[in-house]
């Protein structure tokens, strides 16, 4: 029986299987794109804070926040999850801004510490609005509790 399974058959399974499952993946992607508007909080992006959130995301990226933190569980595992930091800090953008602002420039002896980025008031606002927007994405109930 083993001899009956030829290289040609193996090749056909490879090409056929890959093509089929890639098309299925595209179909699922297409369907997901249709459902996202009800889940991904894009209303916030289109609302009055939209430009601020966009600026916040650029700041988030240009300071490599993901290099220490996770956002919706993705990133580095050195510092707390920030996808829900808005709720963890009592639904307060001021608390977020206060925390970022208060980081000592030289760190804390012996301990991990977030750098002092010297953000302007406008930049702090943008970052906080960005984190608020992320916290309002429908993530199927993740994380399990506010500790992230």
């Amino acid at each position, binding site marked *: 029986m083993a001899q009956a399974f030829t*290289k040609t058959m193996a090749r056909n*399974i*490879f090409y056929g*299987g*890959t093509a089929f*499952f*890639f098309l*299925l*993946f595209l179909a*699922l*992607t297409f*369907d*997901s794109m249709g*459902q*996202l508007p009800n*889940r*991904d909080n*894009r209303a916030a992006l289109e609302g009055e804070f939209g430009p601020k959130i*966009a600026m916040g*995301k*650029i700041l988030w*990226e*240009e*300071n*490599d*926040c*993901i*290099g*220490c933190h996770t*956002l*919706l*569980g*993705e*990133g*580095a*595992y*050195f510092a*707390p*999850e920030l996808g829900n930091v808005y709720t963890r800090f009592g639904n307060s953008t001021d608390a977020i801004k206060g925390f970022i602002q208060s980081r000592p*420039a*030289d*760190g804390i*002896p012996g*301990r*991990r*510490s977030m*750098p002092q*980025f010297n953000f302007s008031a406008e930049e702090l606002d943008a970052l906080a609005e960005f984190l608020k*927007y*992320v916290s309002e*994405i429908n993530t*199927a*109930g*993740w*994380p*399990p*509790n*506010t*500790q*992230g």
Partner: protein
Amino acid sequence: MTYKSQSVAKLYFIAAIALFAAQILFGLILGLQYVMGDFLFPHIPFNAARMVHTNALIVWLLMAFMGAAYYLVPEESETELFSPLLAILMFWIFLVAAGLTVAGYLLVPYSTLAELTGNDLLPTMGREFLEQPTITKLGIVVVALAFLFNIGMTILKGRKTVINLVLLLGLTGLAVFFLFAFYNPTNVVLDKYFWWWVVHLWVEGVWELILGSILAFVLIKVTGVDREVIEKWLYIIIAMTLITGIIGTGHHYFWIGTPEYWQWWGSIFSAMEPIPFFMMTVFAFNMVNKRRREHPNRAATLWALGTAVMAFLGAGVWGFLHTLSPVNYYTHGSQITAAHGHMAFYGAYVMINLTIISYAMPLLRGRNAANSNKSQIWEMWSFWLMTIAMVFITLFLTGAGILQVYLQRVAENPQPFMVVQDQIALFYWLREIAGLMFFGGLVVYIASFFVGQDEPEATVAQS
């Protein structure tokens, strides 16, 4: 070495090993920062060291893939490389771009690097693993296209084997999916959704084609088993890889704002992702058992078998450990993820590259088939040191992860992130010690290129 142009591979392999050393060095810094939070702060903050650690890994793996292709494609195609000059030129462009990027990470704040490189024109920076300035990303595209052209033209004018075609398919996929690195919408869910088209479809998709074809090539060489048999295995392994791995992308779509049906698709398909890795293990051991020749390069055979076992453990078993959505709900983005990442990357991609380097380097350096016994013994010591160290790194991170998940997410009174981190510091210390052992193995590995050079080649014992 059958074709003169194969020699360009040597440059790529040497640079790959140098970057590997840099990667490990920065890994040790990161490990120390986990337990001594102010180490090198604020000069080399954790995120900067991490970028060097992960980006050096990605670049050296790509360099070694390219070296592997430049080595094996002429031999498989039975013709000289289309343009050795282009290969050398692209090597230097790639190396300089990588060097400048790393210097940028370390010498200026990341936001300054973003400003200097005009990130605002086409913002692509600041996403995990894709931290490179946009200009570097464009450079990667140019290098990848020139490389593909060179390899493609070589295959086109020569013999077309299954190994060649699978490798080319993998490399083409690598270049195509990288293009999603340029898509960066403000919408975080969309951003993340297509970010995975680079990251997941690379490491759990097209890279596995590259892995499979390199492994098949080395196994043909060291075992002398009939090509027909090996090629059939290769097809069936990569078929299972893509059948499970493409929809398996869904295991990243559980908690990022995507529809909940992904919990089913992702769990079911990624639960099957260990199958091709298991087949790879069976395949490698079968071929070696059925060998029709004794190859004097025993180190290369050891690396090949090691790849098959460690890829199965790291990618297969440790992946399965946290891939079912009810489990992943608690483990997502924890040290469990880090444990899996370390062993999977080492087992699959570090080891396959060390396999082809082990096989090809003696030939590139003028040996007929293998290094001296002495050199091989050093190399095999490094194999065991690095591999065992990685097993321990993985076990300690898993221990840390289990505790972290329990204290922070499962226990009745969940504790804050940093409070939990303090309680699991012992595991981080142990991981750092295992990391030092890995570094020791790496030193022995590099030394193996310099010892026993004056001694005669190893030969096969006549019995």
